[in-house]
């Protein structure tokens, strides 16, 4: 008997679903074991009946629900609650579902301020009142992670998560296990660069020019980016983006980590830990530009980001 799966995206970008497809050839072996009773991206199951005649949302019973995206509006919330009721296991897929993700950067403002900008302060838009209609759901007070609304049994972080972990977590469930998580290691633990435990000292640099490296040599010949004064969140970010065998993805592009896999463990304080990491190589953490947003780029849910008191006009 194939396992019944509901897959749904909430405040998501589709990247998590593409990551499922990026499982590649093994996907064809996995597919027969799964029956997608709902998957907005690929399957035509409807929430209000196949001919649109039902008055309430009907989510099918499922052994496993996979949800990507955070919760940004009342309908996301309702959908998620219904999915939870019908599913034996719920997987929060990706950093939006796990921590709020990039869209939770909006939590730095009040909702009215966001709508004001989008609908009344855009050079191309004819200013208009905020859209409001029973067919378009209202925003929730903040952009939330899935577990701010319902219990998530398994969290697969990453923006997007690596296909290796999607396969591993699903396989664990198929084998009758009830939990799965990534080991608590940092991105640096999986990074092959040269570390000498000290930087040139002074200010943290923005990415105005490229890192120093020889393009004909591997990453194992490149100096650690933090030690090149380029802010890299590897020390405070959960390892996993490399999958089972690769190197950290941003470092492969010779660009710094921005923390897309989230903190190394629940309850960690990445901001504090990163200040420590920078100080230990002789850099001044106060020189990070836009520090609050950069340190919380993917983790603005869980009240990590909230509106600031009104800022003085620039």
């Amino acid at each position: 008997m194939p396992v019944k799966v509901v897959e749904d995206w909430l405040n998501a970008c589709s990247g998590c679903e593409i990551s499922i497809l990026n499982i590649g050839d093994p996907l064809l072996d996995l597919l027969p074991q799964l029956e997608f009773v709902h998957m907005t991206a690929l399957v035509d199951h409807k929430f209000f009946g196949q001919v649109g005649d039902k008055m309430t949302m009907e989510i099918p019973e499922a052994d496993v629900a996979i949800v990507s995206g955070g919760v940004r509006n009342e309908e996301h919330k309702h959908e998620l609650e219904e999915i939870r009721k019908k599913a034996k296991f719920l997987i929060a897929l990706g950093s939006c579902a796990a921590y709020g993700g990039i869209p939770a950067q909006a939590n730095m403002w009040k909702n009215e301020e966001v709508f004001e900008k989008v609908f009344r302060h855009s050079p191309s838009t004819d200013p208009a009142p905020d859209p409001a209609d029973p067919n378009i759901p209202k925003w929730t007070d903040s952009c939330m992670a899935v577990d701010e609304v319902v219990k998530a049994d398994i969290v697969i972080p990453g923006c997007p998560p690596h296909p290796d972990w999607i396969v591993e977590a699903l396989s664990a469930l198929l084998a009758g296990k009830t939990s799965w998580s990534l080991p608590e290691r940092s991105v640096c633990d999986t990074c092959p660069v040269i570390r000498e435990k000290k930087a040139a000292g002074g200010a943290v640099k923005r990415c105005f020019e490229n890192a120093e490296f020889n393009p004909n040599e591997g990453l194992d010949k490149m100096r650690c980016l933090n030690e090149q004064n380029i802010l890299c969140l590897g020390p405070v970010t959960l390892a996993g983006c490399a999958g089972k065998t690769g190197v950290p993805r941003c470092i492969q592009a010779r660009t710094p980590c921005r923390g897309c896999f989230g903190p190394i463990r629940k309850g960690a304080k990445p901001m504090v830990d990163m200040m420590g990491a920078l100080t230990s190589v002789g850099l001044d953490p106060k020189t990070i530009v836009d520090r609050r947003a950069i340190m919380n780029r993917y983790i603005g849910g869980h009240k990590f980001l909230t509106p600031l008191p009104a800022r003085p006009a620039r």
Partner: protein
Amino acid sequence: MGKVINIQPVTRIEGHAKVAIHLDDAGNVADTKFHVQTLRGFEKFCEGRPAEEMPRIVCHICGICPWAHHLASSKAGDAVFGVTPPPAAVKLRRLMQNIAYVSDKILHFYFLAAPDFVIGPDADYSVRNVVGIVGAAPDIAKQVVHYRHLGAQMLEHFAGRAIHPTFSLPGGVSKPMNEAERQEMLPQAKELLEFAKFTIKFAKENVFPKYLDAIQKLGVIKVGYLGTVNDEGALDFYDGKLRLMQPDGAFEEFTYEQYTDFIGEHVEPWSYQKFPYAKKWGGFALDLENPKGVYRTNTLARINVADKMKTPLAQAELEEFRAAFGRPAHQTLLYHYARLIELVQCAEEAVQLLEDPEITSPEVRTKIEPREARGVGCVEAPRGTLIHDYETDKDGLIKSVNLIVGTTHNNAAINLSVNQAAKETIKGGNYDQGILNKVEMAVRAYDP
């Protein structure tokens, strides 16, 4: 008041949307609406971010076309910092874009659109999907999964991240390509080209001929088109002038910075998505009989506005297409055909770029310095012209952002096509899931 049919969610598309079909007492279609239900607010929350970080933030707008946002943002960044990226950087950006688009077009055609054509629009929903395709045509399905994945792996191998890349920045790209990497990627790009050739041949022989009747009827509307052409008038995904074509084929051209003179955005209370319209065409009206200001983007629009394709095999395909359907072609389902002509160009251009030894030049980034400025960057995203408009302060931090994304341009047209398709297929209160799926097919053609 008659009843309302709610198609929710619209499936095999990329966002959160629903279609509402309002019937009158006789069971005929009185009105339809395509409601886009989500808003994320990037225009606001990018304020204050360092401009050089933008290409790796805004790519998260869409996980299917992150490279389009990544590159439009890099180009807006080039403009705000006032720099020109070195030639090899531009070639690498173009290469990544073409490879990403090959994967995207394969995804859309086989995974999202094909179930309607290969399994059939009236088939039960439980088999009318990619799993059904795997059952019906296992050999093709295997190749599809393989080649889509190959494209993603080429990106990941070289540029680190295939989804939500970090490779391109204002001033250029983060690393050069070495000769070994070029040698590795060239044969892979050639494989993608072979698969592109197979796909369009397969579609022309086995898919499109069966649906000629539907193509002539379903979702057809006569509106304008917007796309990007280079100096020779050829379709260019990365750079050029914007060309805005009227329904009769007459057109005007403008630069990126001039977009606000030509494009306005209207807001309706029942959708979070705005309705861009051509400002100089006498206002905006979502009226099927007499639409005002409505134009389309995405594949069919680009094929219509361009005088020619950039590469020889794609050009031959365009000539065949034009001989059959003319210019501009207005049949909405032809978006699928046009998508495959573009697939061929993307694969051909990827091969051409990799055959050019200059692509391995070590000069790939011009140093940038913060300044107060405004910059507009555009590319053709798979779903249409993508406009990123940034203003920075003297520290190079973002003061203001305006975005018009590919699919948004098509909002009015999707609404009209849904209306047309519903009126065409639902009469006297008769409809079933097959008919409602045909209404959705009018949405899916736009690949929103």
